[in-house]
């Protein structure tokens, strides 16, 4: 997913999303030495319950509909509001990648060769409007994924029996034979057309939230839909604020899946500049800011407010996709030249320094399933990034016969992306191209660079995991099925489709059904094959800063959904 992308429609049907955080050595590095003590995922401490948590963001995150919204900003909130049949464990650290039963009593064993799951629903759970959660709500919720054209309907849930018909005619979606509820037995059966080892992950993201059957079959927009978690939405004005209050019908059923919340109310305020947000948190006028702190405030935060800053590595990467179907990057030597020329350490500096990012050489980020340290384009040679080789890059450009060609780099217009774009322009000019950089609004850049009609040659973008599986990077970003010419939803931005590599990916997906370890070895090989073909230049893996006010405690960082908002205490 795109970290700050605001998506209110089904434009990203092929996107897959994930959010995580771990350090290069695999451990969480968040600074939890803050002034407030931490429960660190321990037992609920009622002494800290109550108060109002004030969060800040420059702008709202779009629709409030959990089956449509595709932003980290609101997915973070949904963790404390909505539940699926399963969910990722809401704890600090690596354990947060674990899928646990949520509205279902337990994780069922897949039957029929991995194609059928029978979930038994927990009893006694109610929505925030007082109505009980039933199997009818579950069936209706899965139908609604297609009826509202959820961004991941075609990628996450297209394997459910009946999904094809639903994708063709969403309005009449029934998922007949695909999702079957048995009200008397309290079970829901999900039948797939083929085994999907990643299906439980897909059930654990907010797009698979269980909503009341009465929820509208269209984007709910700013109208809150009743919740099952500890919070419900009270009011939402995208221009000013979003208010969440306690769900009066919430009763703890699983500490792992949906822990009790601390603050009585969450006020999410919009409209301040990021500079003002930082100042407000410093002054204790707000508890946290969503937006990354501006570059010129980082040193101040890292020194004067070090105890309030928490830095976590993300399983994500920034990269420069190169369009393999138009000049000059339809020539593999030209693409390899770019990989040789870019100094990843320079980009680390532009991102905020080595404490906020690290250079990468592969598609799969460090400590991600399938990742193996291997760097094809580094000088001197090594398994990790060492430095660029401009001479080799220039030589490859000459050999490719593309020297002197004009190249336009499309970047988002925010400070960091614009700076990186300007650096890439300088690099491309230095190896023989006539480069220009075009900075366009971040609201449209991600879709613009996907559409082949725009003839984008090279761009700068990023990808954050949806769930911990190598396919979420390699197959999603570089698989043939992800390339749709002329569409804004063609997440294979490079337009890369190599039949040999695709066959390798298909084989790895098949292996996943029997052995994830064996599959991950295959994914590692795919990663290297892709890097040889160079449809993109992996640049850096970023870290995330959570900056909290001095009086905010119990910071916990889920690798899957980042800071656990419901676990923060203000008393």
């Amino acid at each position, binding site marked *: 997913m795109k970290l700050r992308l605001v998506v209110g429609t089904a434009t990203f049907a092929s996107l897959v999303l994930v959010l995580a955080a771990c350090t290069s050595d695999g451990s969480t590095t968040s600074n939890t030495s803050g002034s407030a003590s931490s429960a660190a995922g321990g037992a609920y401490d009622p002494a800290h319950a109550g108060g109002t948590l004030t969060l800040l963001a420059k702008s709202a995150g779009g629709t409030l509909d959990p089956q449509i919204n595709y932003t980290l900003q609101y997915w973070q909130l949904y963790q404390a509001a909505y539940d699926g049949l399963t969910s990722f464990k809401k704890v600090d650290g690596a354990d947060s990648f674990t899928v646990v039963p949520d509205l279902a009593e337990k994780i069922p064993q897949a039957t029929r060769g991995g194609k059928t799951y029978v979930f038994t629903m927990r009893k006694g759970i109610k929505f925030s409007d007082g109505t009980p959660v039933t199997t009818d709500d579950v069936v209706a919720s899965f139908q609604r994924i297609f009826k509202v054209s959820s961004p991941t309907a075609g990628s996450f849930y297209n394997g459910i029996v009946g999904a094809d018909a639903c994708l063709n005619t969403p309005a009449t979606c029934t998922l007949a034979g695909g999702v079957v509820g048995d009200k008397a037995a309290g079970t829901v059966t999900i039948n797939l057309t083929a085994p999907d080892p990643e299906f439980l992950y897909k059930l654990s993201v907010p797009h698979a939230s269980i909503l009341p059957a009465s929820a509208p079959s269209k984007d709910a927009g700013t109208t809150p839909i009743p919740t099952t978690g500890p919070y419900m939405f009270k009011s939402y004005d995208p221009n000013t604020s979003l208010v969440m209050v306690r769900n009066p019908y919430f009763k703890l059923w699983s500490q792992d899946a949906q822990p009790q919340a601390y603050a009585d109310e969450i006020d999410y305020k919009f409209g301040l500049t990021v500079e003002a947000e930082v100042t407000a948190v410093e002054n204790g006028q707000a508890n946290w800011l969503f937006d990354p702190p501006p570059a010129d405030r*980082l040193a101040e935060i890292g*020194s004067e407010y070090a105890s309030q800053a928490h830095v976590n590595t993300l399983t994500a990467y920034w990269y420069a996709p190169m369009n393999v179907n138009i000049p000059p990057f339809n020539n593999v030597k030209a693409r390899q030249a770019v990989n040789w020329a870019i100094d990843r350490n320079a980009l680390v*500096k532009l991102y905020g320094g080595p404490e906020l990012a690290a250079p990468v050489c592969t598609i799969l980020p460090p400590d991600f399933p399938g990742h193996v340290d291997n760097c094809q384009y580094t000088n001197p040679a090594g398994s990790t990034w060492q430095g660029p080789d401009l001479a080799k890059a220039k030589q490859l450009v000459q050999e490719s016969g593309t020297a002197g060609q004009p190249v336009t780099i499309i970047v988002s217009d925010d400070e960091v992306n614009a700076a990186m774009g300007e650096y890439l322009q300088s690099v491309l000019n230095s190896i023989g191209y006539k480069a220009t950089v075009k900075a366009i609004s971040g609201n449209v850049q991600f879709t613009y660079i996907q559409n082949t009609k725009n003839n984008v040659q090279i761009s700068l973008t990023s990808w954050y995991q949806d769930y911990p599986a190598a396919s979420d990077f390699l197959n999603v970003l570089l698989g043939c099925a992800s390339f749709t010419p002329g569409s804004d939803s063609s997440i294979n931005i490079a337009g890369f489709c190599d039949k040999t590599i695709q066959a390798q990916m298909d084989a790895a997906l098949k292996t996943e059904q029997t052995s994830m370890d064996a599959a991950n070895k295959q994914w590692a090989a795919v990663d290297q094959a892709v890097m040889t073909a160079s449809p993109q230049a992996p640049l850096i893996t970023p870290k995330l800063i959570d900056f909290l006010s001095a009086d905010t405690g119990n910071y916990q960082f889920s690798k899957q959904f980042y800071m656990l908002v419901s676990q923060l205490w203000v008393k």
Partner: protein
Amino acid sequence: MGSLVVLILIVAACVAAPLYANNIAHVDAFASNVQGTYTLNGVTGPVLVNSTEGLGLGVTPIGPTWNFSTYFLGADNQGRDVFARILYGGRNSLLIGFVSAVLCCMLAGLVGVVAGYFGKGVDAVLSRALDVLWAFPVYLLAICLSVVLINTTLTIGPWTLTSGSLLLPILIIGIIYVPYVARPIRGQVMSLREREFVQAAVGAGAKDSRLLRRELLPNVLPTLIVFLPLMTAINMLTESALSFLSIGVQPPDASWGTIINDGVGLLYTRPMVAIAPGIILAITAVALNLLGDGVRDALDPKARLRGSL
């Protein structure tokens, strides 16, 4: 006279930008230098410095060294010499400001003289066209045109303006201010048309073209000359505003507006990146305005007399 001297000094410094960059500072003002180093008083260090305090977050460019040979005003976020870029940027700002002012005055003079002299239908059409242009807030119009045109290749007949060409901001800025100059010129021509010397020329059988060239144009020329420095200042400020919004001069080229924009992200740590081009821009604008006043006084002694009274 003082303003003229200041202007000459600024123009001369900007013209000498390559001399400074290549022979004194030894820097490339346009290439990213993120991993670059500098040496000052025998000490070598990185141009962009990683923070080492606390959590070690952030990277800060070096600040002013006040040494002309080494990052006199410090570096920007790409590690480029700010002073060298200010000199290069001044070339673009002054060029765009002056050329667009010339273009504006020429177009305005043409429209104003034709509308004022011919009157009736011609005046009505031209005046309404100016009204339409005038109806838009000037910056809004400039921003709209820039957003549409600045990143696209514009082809008009045999001419092609490539993306990022300086001609685009020149054309945009030159055109949007035409009504502001054309209106007073038109009024002046309408007044001149009734004067005795024009009537005498008409009586003597002079044709329209001769009347325009020999009688009217010479009389409105001083007004246009007075407008020129004033419009140069205004256009320079407009260019800076557009460049500040990233829709004027395109990277890696610089103008004072783009450098101010570069400095916004460094206001807390390296304010000089934004302040220095801002000060030079202000000085230049004031000098141009004073020059405009001086030219007006020189060309219209009565006005100077009125001013002194």
